């Protein structure tokens, strides 16, 4: 065989070897990629399955919250009036009056009354019931009233004395106890020696 034939065979063998080496390496890497993509697909499937009901649930939650907000805003405006309602909200959340109520677009144009201004009876009642209405706040930026037990008293204390309809603290009348004016079950044998049974 001539030398050129030997060279030809050697080059062909080298080409085949190169093809085998690189293609086998590529196949191994592609197998790793396939395995990795299988893991990705499994995880993405879990994500899709877990996130599928989220949209409906969140929309339902938002719908319920919207209904609640509309209800409370409507009740507040109905009972306190637009001006005082805006003042209440602005007192609780300073600056919130600019946004106004969602169900009442005109509420954004209402200038909220300042804290300390005399409110209507409905607002005062709301303040007493809510225990934290801005009517009991010292300043718009300060903390609102949060005294649960004495919220009504504290709210009334903000008004002049002439507006108070009753004394701050009524005298207590002892009804029960040893110093009560009326003692029940007045028995003569209390404090006396105990009676003994005669022996047979």
């Amino acid at each position: 065989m001539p030398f050129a034939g030997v060279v030809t065979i050697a080059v062909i063998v080298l080409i085949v070897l190169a093809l085998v080496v690189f293609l086998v390496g590529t196949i191994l890497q592609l197998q790793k990629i396939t395995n990795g993509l299988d893991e990705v697909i499994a995880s993405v499937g879990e994500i899709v399955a877990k996130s599928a009901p989220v949209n409906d649930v969140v929309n339902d939650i938002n719908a319920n919250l919207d209904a609640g907000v509309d209800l409370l805003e409507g009740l507040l405006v109905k009972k306190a009036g637009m001006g005082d309602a805006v003042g209440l909200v602005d007192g609780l959340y300073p600056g919130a009056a600019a946004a106004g109520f969602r169900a009442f677009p005109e509420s954004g144009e209402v200038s909220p009354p300042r804290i300390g201004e005399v409110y209507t009876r409905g607002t005062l009642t709301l303040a007493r019931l809510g225990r934290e209405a801005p009517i009991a706040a010292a300043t718009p930026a300060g903390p609102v009233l949060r005294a649960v037990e004495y919220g009504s008293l504290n709210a009334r204390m903000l008004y002049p004395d002439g507006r108070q309809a009753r004394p701050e603290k009524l005298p207590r009348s002892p009804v029960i106890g040893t110093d009560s004016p009326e003692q029940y079950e007045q028995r003569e044998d209390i404090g006396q020696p105990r009676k003994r049974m005669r022996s047979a």
Partner: protein
Amino acid sequence: MTLWWIGNVVLVVVLVVVIVLLSGVLKAATSIVPSVRAIAGTAAAGSKDLDATALLLTTQEQVQQTVAVVANYGGSLDVILDDAEER
């Protein structure tokens, strides 16, 4: 014979070209593997993060109950309290 040698030269050139091309393919395939592994890890972590979405059903139920209670309170307040006076 001359043509044979020319053919051998062509074969050598083909060998070089094959090596260069397949080397590039292998390098590209090798570089994809870490990216795929990173994506798989991220997807698994994202799936784990969504485990809490089941609690949204509890939140949904609680919100419904809360809004129902608020509606009941609102109805009672609507009866108890006077409406604001018209100014």
